[in-house]
């Protein structure tokens, strides 16, 4: 789960990472008031969960409260990469001497946290990595020991930080690491961490991504979710423990297991069809889940045919068949349904479906073939 800049900054503040003075606003007049409180000159930053806000015109410097209001009005009316700007962050302007990059993320290869730092901050770190990799300093942290003092000093040395800033830097990196740990972040990033002309270190921007698997430890996070970035059908699917992602094809898919769901989409594509979605009904899916899944798939008007591929292990095929029958009776769709059941109680499942208006298939290849033909208007 990605957090907005203002949400990340609030968290940083709690962990003693200095941030600029400022507040979030959702109407332009509020921006004016905040600018007045901050002494006039402010930066107005759109709060959307995509990169490239600056380039899109979503970040503007205002010289006085009147201009702050103008820019706020403008930015609050914008859409950036398809996402509406609903909130803006109004921050004081600081005079920058130097920009640093500082981030902590999970290193999948070493299976431990890694601190990444660079004296070239303020631009996309992946760009720095490509153009001048020597400017990137990385340091792995033993997850059982945690971040050690000598490591913090190593990082300061690694980015040629002047001694006079070490004290502030150590406090910031320690705070960032605690924020990363306590919040179960998969990324905690300050870009840029600036050194101001009056020699203060401040996190000018902030980015955090929280591990979805750890949200049970952070129930308060659910309120911070930005539903704009999630499709309504995806949110609905989560309620039933389904994993659904809408795509732009016309063959709706319902499969148990993520890998098999992907493989089912692949084979549809190979036969010239286009999957309308990824949908994993999960292990042990019963009738309720199947019915919910069917409705979610049908909420996509592009769907011309539905392919259901179930390999019964924990999931019982007769349960799936029952769910399907009750859902079909309920929604009364004209969209043809192709079903392939194998594994636990597949016989019983197929018998249940014998009298229903569905097409059955024995193999995945056969099921995909039939679905593709139906989606392209072919007859069986």
């Amino acid at each position, binding site marked *: 789960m990605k957090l907005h800049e203002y949400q990340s900054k609030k968290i940083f503040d709690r962990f003693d990472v200095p941030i600029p003075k400022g507040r979030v606003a959702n109407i332009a007049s509020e921006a004016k008031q905040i600018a007045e409180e901050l002494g006039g000159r402010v930066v107005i930053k759109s709060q959307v969960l995509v990169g490239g806000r600056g380039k899109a015109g979503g970040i503007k410097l205002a010289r006085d409260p009147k201009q702050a209001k103008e820019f706020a009005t403008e930015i609050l009316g914008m859409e950036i990469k398809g996402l509406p700007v609903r909130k803006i962050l109004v921050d004081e302007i600081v005079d920058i001497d130097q920009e640093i990059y500082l981030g902590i993320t999970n290193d999948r290869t070493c*299976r431990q946290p890694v601190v990444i730092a660079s004296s070239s901050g303020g631009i996309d770190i992946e760009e720095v990595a490509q153009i001048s990799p020597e400017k990137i300093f990385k340091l792995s942290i033993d*997850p059982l020991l945690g971040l050690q003092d000598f490591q913090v000093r190593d990082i300061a040395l690694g980015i040629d930080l002047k001694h006079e800033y070490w004290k502030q830097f150590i406090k910031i990196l320690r705070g960032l690491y605690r924020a990363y740990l306590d919040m*179960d972040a998969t990324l905690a990033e300050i870009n840029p961490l600036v050194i101001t002309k009056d020699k203060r270190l401040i996190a000018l921007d902030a980015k955090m991504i929280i*591990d979805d698997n750890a949200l049970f430890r952070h129930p308060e996070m659910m309120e911070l979710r930005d539903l704009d970035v999630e499709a309504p059908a995806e949110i609905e699917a989560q309620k039933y423990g389904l*994993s659904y992602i809408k795509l732009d094809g016309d063959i709706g898919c319902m499969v148990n297991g993520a*890998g098999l*769901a*992907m*493989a089912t989409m692949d084979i549809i594509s190979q036969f010239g069809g286009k999957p309308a979605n990824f949908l994993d009904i999960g292990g042990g899916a019963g009738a309720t889940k199947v019915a919910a899944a069917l409705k979610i798939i049908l909420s996509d008007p592009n769907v011309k045919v539905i392919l259901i591929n179930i390999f019964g292990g924990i999931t019982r095929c007769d349960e799936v068949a029952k769910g399907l029958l009750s859902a079909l009776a309920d929604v009364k769709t004209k969209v043809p349904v192709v079903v392939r059941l194998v594994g636990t109680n597949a016989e019983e499942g197929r018998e249940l479906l014998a009298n229903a208006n569905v097409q059955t298939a024995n193999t995945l290849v056969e099921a995909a073939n039939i679905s593709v033909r139906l989606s392209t208007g072919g007859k069986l």
Partner: protein
Amino acid sequence: MSILVNKNSRILVQGITGNEGNFHAWQMYQYGNNVVAGVTPGKGGEWVFEGKVPVFDSVKVAKEATGANVSVIFVPAHFAGDAMLEAADAGIELIVCITEGIPVRDMMRVRKYLDQKGSKLIGPNCPGLITPSEAKVGIIPGNITMPGNVGVISRSGTLTYEVLYAMMLLGIGTSTCVGIGGDPISGLSYIDLLEMFELDPLTDQIVLIGEIGGTDEQKAADYISRYMTKPVVAFIAGQSAPSGKRMGHAGAIIESGSGTAEEKIKALQEVGVQIARHPEEIAILLNR
């Protein structure tokens, strides 16, 4: 012969009194396994499976009483990290964690500790492993595979069943099938298992089932080109997946253009691995 588990494995089930744990432990028991003990803190002293299998409060006590050397974990994600640490602390040699949805932070610590203790881990978020007719540790259905000479390694669950089943329909059996799980941080890797299968006299060929996300398949390709003499057939799921979207498994995400199915297929093909276009084709590509 087989790898990791066989008829002499003494299996312990952590979470044996929970819904899932109880159901699958019973399936394992019926398969003819040596399910020697269960562990559920607070339920020590009870018995399950018609009074045949004792339940203990801790792994340590269970191991002392029964000589268990393999543990399979079915406890919820909140407690799974602790369960793995407990098993390793008790000296269990092979830990198989079925649980899905474990936070990455927990897994980083667990993996490090297990490495220090010398315990092997399979999973988490995996279906476990099976040596047909000898030992079923986890949730892979017993009736979709039979003994044979093919070693199977997979990051997926039901996709693996699909492959095992297609193999069985063509009369091809399995030496051992291992589901290593789809999480970004897990235990034994493709490479660890390729090495074991290469050394296993009863395995003649290997099936590798991968998916989008990460670079483990590429690393496997590199290992195959250097060390493997046995033929490998592979399938990679997610060729039609869009980037930036997590496809169910926490590890299955294409990030900024890396971890695509294309890259993985190319890396494997370059080292002589045959690639199946769909899961059922794997069985056709294997030598009979």
